[in-house]
């Protein structure tokens, strides 16, 4: 075999374990889901194989699914904006700090050591009727009886921000780290204020990181179902809860498959738009 041919084959050999894993664990199950979405659920709960468009017809035309999907996208958008507003200053502070950067990054990663469900449930002990906040308010005499703070849309968003903020901070931090600090100094030496230098130089250069963090936060929050289940009220369901319900409660795997593909298509379109304008490279940097 020639050296050229060997060099051509080498990347594929190196990639083969990852490609095999993606093929077996992602692509093939996805094909199953696509096939399932055209089957039907019978009255007994068993599936009827075939090619039926009923599930797709229901998923695409029923306003119930459309409304919940729009509601989910709205919550995901609010969460993403909140993460950006809170995450950018934190990332800026870490990127510009001297000496204790490693410690700050470690603190940022610390929540990942605890299960996401436990972290979500911890809010019950903080905001619950007999939680820490109410205890303080009652003991300070600010309120005479506990305030009901849990189980509504704001607590769902709070739980999502708590979960996703580190993803935003990490992405923005990576982008800020790649910007030469002397650029801001150069802008200041040319007469701009610190704020102008940040606005005209640093912020535009860090936008790809912000966008990558935003994409991650949006996609992850739009696909969550645990947070609304634990922290949401009776009507705070998100689209993934519908998928869960169709598959688990109603044992309607075909409809659940169609719904999950619908969500996948919406989020996939978002990723494609991002890739078209900013490329996936920045996202990989943030994840790395």
């Amino acid at each position, binding site marked *: 075999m020639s050296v050229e041919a060997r060099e051509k084959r080498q990347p594929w050999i190196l990639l083969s374990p990852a490609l095999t894993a993606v093929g077996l664990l992602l692509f093939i199950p996805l094909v199953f889901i696509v096939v399932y979405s055209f089957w039907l*659920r019978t*009255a*007994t*709960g*068993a599936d009827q194989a075939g090619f039926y468009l009923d599930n797709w017809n229901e998923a695409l035309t029923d306003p*119930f699914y459309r409304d*919940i999907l729009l509601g989910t996208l709205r919550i995901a958008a609010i969460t993403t904006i909140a993460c950006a507003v809170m995450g950018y200053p934190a990332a800026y502070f870490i990127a510009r700090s001297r000496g204790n950067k490693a410690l700050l990054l470690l603190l940022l990663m610390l929540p990942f050591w605890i299960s996401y469900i436990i972290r979500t449930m911890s809010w*019950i002990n903080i905001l*619950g*009727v*007999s939680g820490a906040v109410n205890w303080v308010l009652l003991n300070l005499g600010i309120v005479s009886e506990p305030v*009901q703070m*849990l*189980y509504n849309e704001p607590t769902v968003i709070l739980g999502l921000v708590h979960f996703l903020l580190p993803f935003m901070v990490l992405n923005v931090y990576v982008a800020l780290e790649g910007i030469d600090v002397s650029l801001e100094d150069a802008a200041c030496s040319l007469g701009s204020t610190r704020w102008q230098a940040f606005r005209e130089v640093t912020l535009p250069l860090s936008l790809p990181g912000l966008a990558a963090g935003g994409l991650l936060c949006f996609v992850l929050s739009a696909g969550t179902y645990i947070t609304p*289940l634990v922290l949401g*009220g*009776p*009507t705070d*369901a998100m689209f993934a*809860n*519908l998928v869960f*319900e*169709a*598959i*688990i*409660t*109603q*044992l*309607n*795997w075909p409809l659940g498959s169609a719904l999950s593909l619908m969500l996948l298509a919406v989020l996939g379109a978002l990723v494609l738009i991002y890739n078209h304008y900013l490329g996936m490279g920045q996202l990989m940097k943030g994840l790395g």
Partner: protein
Amino acid sequence: MDNTKRYERLRERYLNGDLDRRKFLGLIGAAGLAYGVQTPFARHAMAATEEVRFDGWGGVVSEAFRKYAFDPYTKKTGIKVVDGTFGGGDEYLSRVKASQEGEYNIAHLSGVFDYARYVNLGLNSTLNEDNIPNLKYVIPKLTDVFRSVTDGKLSCVPYDYGTTGIAYNRKYISDDEAKEKGAKLLIDAAYKGKIGAWSDWRTRVWYGSLQTGQDPNDATDMDAVWQAVRTNRDLLLKYWQSGAELMSLLAEEEIYVTEGWSGRIYALQEQGHDIGYIDPPNGFGWQECLFVIKGSPMEACEELLNFMLAPETSIAVAEGQNYPPALDPKKVDLGKKIPTLPAFDPTGTLDGLTFANPEYWNSHEQAWSKMFGRIQKGY
């Protein structure tokens, strides 16, 4: 016929002159070869039955099973019991449907309608009742309803029963008020934001029927029922998902009233919480069973079921999980605690409890579970 007998017969035929020496030795060699080849696989097959998987409701129920049934059973038989948990019957059925045959063995299922669903999906097995002699202690009415679903045979043994009644915090709601309002306490606007409800469509429809004065096993005005479900939803703090969440919401006083499982509420009362519990007229009665899923190692499972039905084990588990056992109080002395448990029927006839009619509920399952899913989300 075992191998020893085969060799003895072979030897007898040889000694009688029916076989020549070469044939005899050849057959002995072939038998030896077959034994050598078969034994490792047989051992492997036996080893597979040394472990049985049991799935239940978790919490105090699982603790009781582990302490009073599984550990002593493993000690006695050497068969390990792997116990898993689930939050609801629907979730578990979905897991079983997605699994390989034999992956799940015994499940602590609720209601005859669940039994019928498993049967409809072809997930049932047939128990050899001769291997479960302790079945004779069980209230006959409890086994009869299962037999009627599976042509006189059983795929499960009844294990306990209980009710889903109304639990309320006595600090805010008096016993008299609870008794007077009954199921309508759950749609009382005075407790808006302090009401909880199980996110189970059957329970919601059952209580919707009671709130609209209808027979829960034969509601005729479903529009009224759905309206009651909506009214309840609008007054709720939260739909709870599991027994642990139910107990936490009541204990932390996040909610003052909800429907609840009799055993869990009794556990809260034992912990010192001042929680009242009533079964309104036509309250939701249910029985639980230990269901053996198709593809399970039957003999090992039957042995475990027999062990679990032994009066001493069954009573200990019942006292631990606070649900009366399926044992007939006329045949078995149930001790002091069990007669004090909610839903306990000293007559053994269970005439005072209203159970879900599996035909009625399963025939509406697809439409009603979907409908409730929508109402739950504000529609």
